[in-house]
């Protein structure tokens, strides 16, 4: 059964300083998807996410969230996990307080004080990523992997229907990364996940749909990534992609086509 679309991007273009950053992007994310968007640095991946979140105006086309243009109430149903390096982690804030800020989107007005329910939700979000023990720690003492998980907990605190992750594993070492994908995989049973990454080697076998982005978006309506898709996206053949039923699939090697 094909699930209803939760994110619909239709003919989306974004132009910045006379540069086309995104060129007529069209795709849908359906309920229950674990959707990966892969592409090299500078492909417009973060801009695409920012356009979906309504932080960047669309020059053409539109983005629908849950069937309607982005509104405060639909945006509150998205949990956003930005790249960790954009943060000032020396900020004096505990993990629990940071996760609490994920509840802000569910409130209205100027004065948004936290209720008992918010604190419960924050604790539950931490427990979903097995990080209850982190709650009282200041964020500046966290390791890279712990920071990443804390940011996911913040996104989960709002009890979202979609989780959007921007380059979640860039600053994480390999064993942590493995653990991290297991975590995402178990979360994906309950929640739609959209993840962008520049590293196609990390597209795990848990992902069920993949799109390649390099200013344009190349989409397969299955979990298959063809060598052609990779070549078009990266401008060269790429070594390995791992996803689908086959855990690791070897494509063509670099240099074979030189």
């Amino acid at each position, binding site marked *: 059964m094909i699930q209803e679309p939760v994110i619909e991007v239709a003919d989306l273009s974004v132009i910045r300083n006379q540069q086309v950053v995104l060129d007529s992007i069209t795709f849908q994310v359906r309920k229950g998807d674990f959707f990966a968007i892969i592409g090299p640095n500078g492909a417009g991946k973060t801009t695409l996410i920012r356009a979906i979140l309504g932080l960047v105006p669309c020059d053409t086309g539109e983005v629908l969230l849950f069937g309607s243009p982005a509104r405060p109430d639909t*945006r509150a149903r998205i949990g956003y996990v930005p790249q960790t390096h954009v943060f000032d982690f020396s900020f004096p804030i505990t993990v629990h307080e940071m996760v609490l*800020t994920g509840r*802000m989107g569910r409130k*209205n007005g100027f004065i948004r004080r*936290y209720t008992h329910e918010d604190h419960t939700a924050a604790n539950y979000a931490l427990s979903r990523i097995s990080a209850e023990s982190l709650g009282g720690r200041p964020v500046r003492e966290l390791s890279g992997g712990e920071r990443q998980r804390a940011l996911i907990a913040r996104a989960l605190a709002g009890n979202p229907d979609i989780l959007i992750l921007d380059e979640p594993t860039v600053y994480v070492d390999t064993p942590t990364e493995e653990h991290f994908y297991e975590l995402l995989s178990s979360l994906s049973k309950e929640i739609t996940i959209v993840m962008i990454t520049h590293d196609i080697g990390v597209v795990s076998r848990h992902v069920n749909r993949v799109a390649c982005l390099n200013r344009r978006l190349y989409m397969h309506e299955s979990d298959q990534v063809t060598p052609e898709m990779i070549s078009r996206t990266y401008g060269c053949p790429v070594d390995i992609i791992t996803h689908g039923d086959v855990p690791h699939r070897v494509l063509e090697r670099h240099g074979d086509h030189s």
Partner: protein
Amino acid sequence: MIEALGFEFFRSALLAGLMASVICGIIGSYVYVKHMISVAGGISHAAFGGIGLGYLLGIDPLAGAFWFTLGIATLIWGLLERAKEHIDTLIGAFWAGGMAFGILCLSLTPGYTPDLFSYLFGNILLVAPEHLMMIALLAVGIVLLFCIFYPVLQALAFDPEYAAISNLPTRGLHLLVLILIAISVVVLIQVVGIILVIALLTLPAAIARPLSRSLKGMMVRATIISMILTTSGIFLSWIFDIPSGSTIILLGVAVYLMVLGGTGIVQGFKKDRQNTE
């Protein structure tokens, strides 16, 4: 030293210092973590325009500074939202422009302006009794506003982008923050003067930050540190007959450098231990 407490002006100075410390602790910590030190510097120097205007119009210069800085804060807010100008350029313009306007006003003011110097460098021992009530009201107002808005202001400072996605009224909150800074600056001018205001705002916060796990804790610690600095500064300036504003600031700088050195040594030890393990 104790006999100083017998003088009303001295008790007023101590009280003003303690109340100003509450403002320093709260607003200073927020300015520090939100990287708005240059904004605070710009607003405080622009306040000189209000002082000059006060002299020219024959009203209380501090009242002039109060309304003038509120205007400047609103103007900075409006321009930052619309003009897309680089914030440093904008701040620089208001910083120097405000001072230039103040000097112009003073040159047009007939007669002699005796306490101009104390507005520039501060003299808490000259704080007027009628200003004590004003400082108290402003301090209470700032504490109340900050308590009410603490969760949203914390969220805004930690991650402005996430605040925007969470549909926080970021524009309105930015205006609120700028106005709170403007009000604080007017109070602190009486303690250390225009030129030293940024130091009083940032030093206690900078000392408190490495000791604090949360913004709330940082604000409490910065308040206490500021109380210690202002009180001991006032006593020292009385005993040695030296300017109170610069005494308070130099004490703050000394403590800050000691804390910096101290944390540097502690981190060095930790590293050594890790290396030997």
